[in-house]
């Protein structure tokens, strides 16, 4: 057999130039000795500029300063593979990469330097994101373009100390967004408090926010700090800001402008270092035009405005949100629900969600009551969605009817699950047997002519006989 021809000397160079992984070598002084074509492409630095320079000036990875892989390799003489990190290129872009390092040794085993191989991971990252299509920030998940744009600017919004105005229909996640802003901000270690302004009358809202001094009014027997005081350094969400009175609006404006507030019954101002996020389910500009909201406060609040789209405009998020809620409720309720079956998904995708994400969450929560494992099926959904609903689909049922229908489906399904054994079904539903009988009668539930007890009894008898 003929001996193969000896490999030419420059073959290593040819191989290094042809691969798509970046490769560079360094000497003991951390100066770059070689730099291949892919390294040029990934870093954007020409070989002539790189060779002879310190590796950290060229490579610029976040691990250079504190956890250099090459340094560890050269100290320990061992190989490190696939460490994930990022480099910063001259366009100020972070490029995710994976890094492997190995010592360069002489034939006698002496360490001459190190070799670092790195792979541009941004395409993989982008594909992974594209496949998954989601962005998650705190409890907000979305693959919707508008939401993505909003979340892209969220770190900048969070970093700034500006007042933020959140607009969006009820149930669109204004509080979640406010919380995400707080958690991404330098104030994240301090408290976050959400106040619903429409839930409290004016004077009570004022005393809750600014506190009061003893003797400020009857029964004010001792000082009470307000949320602006206990949240010092943190964030306050003022929800339903559009529902506040003109008098309260004046006081809030003063707090925002002077960064100080006066507790009820006090003559001294208290300094306030609280970031205010205002939220409303209406267009605040419309309320200003109608004369129901002070324009000066509007302009003071409207520094950064973020509008949350209703769920009907981001239906592509429904599967993602369902998955999110199922995961969370499985953990909370120790269940093993695997998701929703295709029929359920079809039904849920067709719904218009006047109650937005909160409504979807409630639907899933309802299904969790009836479904312990496996996929959620149509029969687990509230009556208005179920195939078993006695209501025509083109008619919006009145609330009482919907509740009755939901209850009827729940009872019927539980009975089915327990082979129509009334006692077992009553136990599973957490009600007395007589209550179950009363409800079956009241809701007009028609049961088949089988009795759970007798069925199981017969079975037992039959087994015994056999």
């Amino acid at each position, binding site marked *: 057999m003929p001996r193969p021809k000896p490999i030419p000397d420059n073959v290593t160079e040819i191989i290094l130039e042809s691969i798509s992984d970046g490769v560079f070598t360094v000497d003991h002084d951390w100066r770059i000795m070689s730099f291949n074509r892919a390294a040029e492409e990934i*870093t*954007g*630095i*020409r070989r002539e*500029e*790189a060779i002879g*320079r*310190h590796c*950290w*000036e*060229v490579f*610029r*990875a*976040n*691990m*250079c*300063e*504190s956890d250099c892989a090459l340094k560890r390799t050269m100290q320990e003489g061992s190989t490190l593979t696939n460490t994930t990190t990022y480099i*910063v*290129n*001259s*366009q*100020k*872009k*972070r490029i995710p990469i994976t890094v492997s390092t190995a010592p360069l040794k002489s034939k006698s085993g002496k360490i001459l330097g190190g070799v670092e191989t790195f792979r541009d991971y941004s395409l993989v990252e982008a594909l992974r994101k594209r496949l998954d299509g989601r962005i998650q920030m705190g409890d907000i998940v979305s693959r919707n373009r508008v939401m993505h744009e909003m979340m892209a600017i969220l*770190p*900048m919004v969070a*970093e*700034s*100390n500006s007042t933020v105005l959140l607009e969006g229909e009820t149930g669109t996640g204004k509080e979640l967004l406010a919380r995400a802003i707080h958690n991404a901000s*330098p104030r994240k270690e301090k408290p976050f408090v959400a106040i619903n302004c429409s839930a409290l009358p004016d004077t009570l809202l004022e005393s809750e926010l600014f506190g009061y001094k003893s003797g400020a009014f009857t029964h004010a027997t001792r000082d009470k700090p307000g949320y602006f005081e206990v949240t010092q350094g943190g964030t306050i969400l003022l929800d339903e800001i559009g529902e506040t009175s003109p008098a309260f609006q004046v006081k809030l404006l003063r707090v925002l402008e002077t960064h100080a507030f006066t507790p009820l019954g006090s003559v001294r101002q208290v300094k306030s270092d609280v970031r205010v996020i205002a939220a409303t389910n209406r267009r605040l500009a419309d309320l200003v035009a109608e004369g129901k909201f002070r324009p000066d406060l509007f302009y003071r609040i409207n520094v950064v405005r973020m509008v949350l789209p209703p769920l009907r405009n981001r239906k592509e998020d429904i599967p993602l949100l369902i998955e999110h809620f199922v995961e969370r409720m499985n953990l909370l309720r120790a269940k093993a629900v695997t998701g929703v079956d295709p029929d359920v998904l079809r039904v849920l995708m067709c719904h218009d969600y006047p109650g937005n994400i909160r409504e979807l969450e409630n639907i899933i929560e309802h299904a969790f009551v009836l479904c312990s494992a496996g996929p959620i099926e149509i029969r687990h959904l509230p009556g208005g969605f179920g195939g078993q609903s006695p209501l025509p689909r083109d008619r919006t049922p009145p609330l009482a009817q919907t509740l009755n229908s939901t209850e009827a489906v729940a009872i019927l399904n539980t009975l089915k699950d327990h082979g129509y054994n009334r006692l077992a079904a009553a136990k599973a539903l957490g009600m007395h047997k007589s209550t179950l009988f009363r409800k079956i009668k009241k809701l007009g539930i028609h049961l088949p002519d089988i009795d759970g007890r007798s069925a199981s009894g017969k079975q037992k008898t039959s087994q015994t006989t056999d």
Partner: protein
Amino acid sequence: MKVAITIWGDRISPVFDAARRLLIVTIDQGHIINREEATFDPEQPSNLTKALIDQEVAVLICGAVSQTPAAVITASGIRLIPFITGKVERVLGAYAQGTSLAPAFIMPGCLGAVFETDSSSTH
């Protein structure tokens, strides 16, 4: 005038996003007359800019920096001179003397980026 510089031993920290230490010097008539060191969190650039503005720091010299912190620093009014490399004393000495930091102290492949950031910042 006060100048801040991100440091790593006696060198400029290679990546602002992973830097931890800051040297703040006061330059008067081409000489450094005061210096103090501080630590900071690069993930909270607005905290850093607030502290720098409180101390009347006008310029921040650093290594490579990514878009978000660069935008926060620039928006605060502090002059950012990024992609600088080398020994801290040599860089500060050159800056105090009004000598151009480019091209001697610019990271490889970043000359264009520095001039794009602020053509006047490197003198």
